[in-house]
């Protein structure tokens, strides 16, 4: 089973991706999608050494909700900052000490940070323990770090790493 279908989640995502790409739902395309969904993970399985498991779907759903709200809220905030003018900005680099360890969780955290307006992840330290984040305007860097850890890192760790480490 593991050899024939190495990454069931990836397979399902590829089928959905294919159906969205052709933008229609028919038996033919479902079959073609299923073929691709099997063939691609099978052919590229050496690039995906870790088995990906999602532990708490509820936590993941809530995380996505928080993420969506933060994008909207942050966009308004950054738009306002840009309109107000660059003279009022207090850009800072902050160092976020990481608790997550797997490649997937670290990259998802870095992507989340970059997508939520106001922060861009800039650098992962060589020992993968610290993520350096540039923020466009902050008067309290310590609070920002705490917020990132609590809002984004904790749920990601729970969903993708709990029990794996």
């Amino acid at each position, binding site marked *: 089973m593991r050899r024939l279908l190495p990454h069931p989640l990836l397979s399902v995502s590829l089928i959905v*991706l294919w159906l*969205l*790409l052709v*933008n*229609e739902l028919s038996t033919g395309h479902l079959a073609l999608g299923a073929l691709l969904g099997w063939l691609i993970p099978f052919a590229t399985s050496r690039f995906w050494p870790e088995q990906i498991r999602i532990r708490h779907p509820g936590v993941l759903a809530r995380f996505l909700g928080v993420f969506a709200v933060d*994008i*909207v809220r*942050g*966009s308004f905030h*950054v*738009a306002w900052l*840009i*309109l107000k*003018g*660059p003279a009022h*900005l207090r*850009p*800072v*680099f902050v*160092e976020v000490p990481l608790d997550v360890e797997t490649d997937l969780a670290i990259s998802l955290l*870095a*992507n*989340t*940070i*970059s*997508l939520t*307006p*106001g922060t*861009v*992840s*800039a*650098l*992962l*330290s*060589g*020992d*993968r323990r*610290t993520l*350096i984040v*540039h923020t*466009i305007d902050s008067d309290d860097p310590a609070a920002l770090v705490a917020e990132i850890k609590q809002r984004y890192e904790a749920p990601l760790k729970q969903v993708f790493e709990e029990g794996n480490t």
Partner: protein
Amino acid sequence: MTDTLLALLILTGAMFTFIGSLGLARLRDFYTRLHGPTKATTLGVGCLLIASALFFSLRDDGASLHEVLVTLFLFITAPVSAHLLAKAALHLKVRSLAPTPRAGDAQTTDRG
């Protein structure tokens, strides 16, 4: 009714995209400029894509969900390019308004 909603979405999207570009022009150092375009792609393009999905779903019956893919690809690529730009800038020691992190950290990431 739907026309009003669509117009609102398109206008909001256009406004955020514009402000993002304005940020690129107005802000004063490389790192803060980086925030403009990444923001524009998230909310601005998001609004435009919702408008597009609504319009095509209502016009030709049957949902048009292409747009979900565009959002997905943007959400995957935008932060990666922003991250690489910031990382390259740190290596090149581009002038920054914020004090840059210790030089030692920038060095160690060659392996990272």
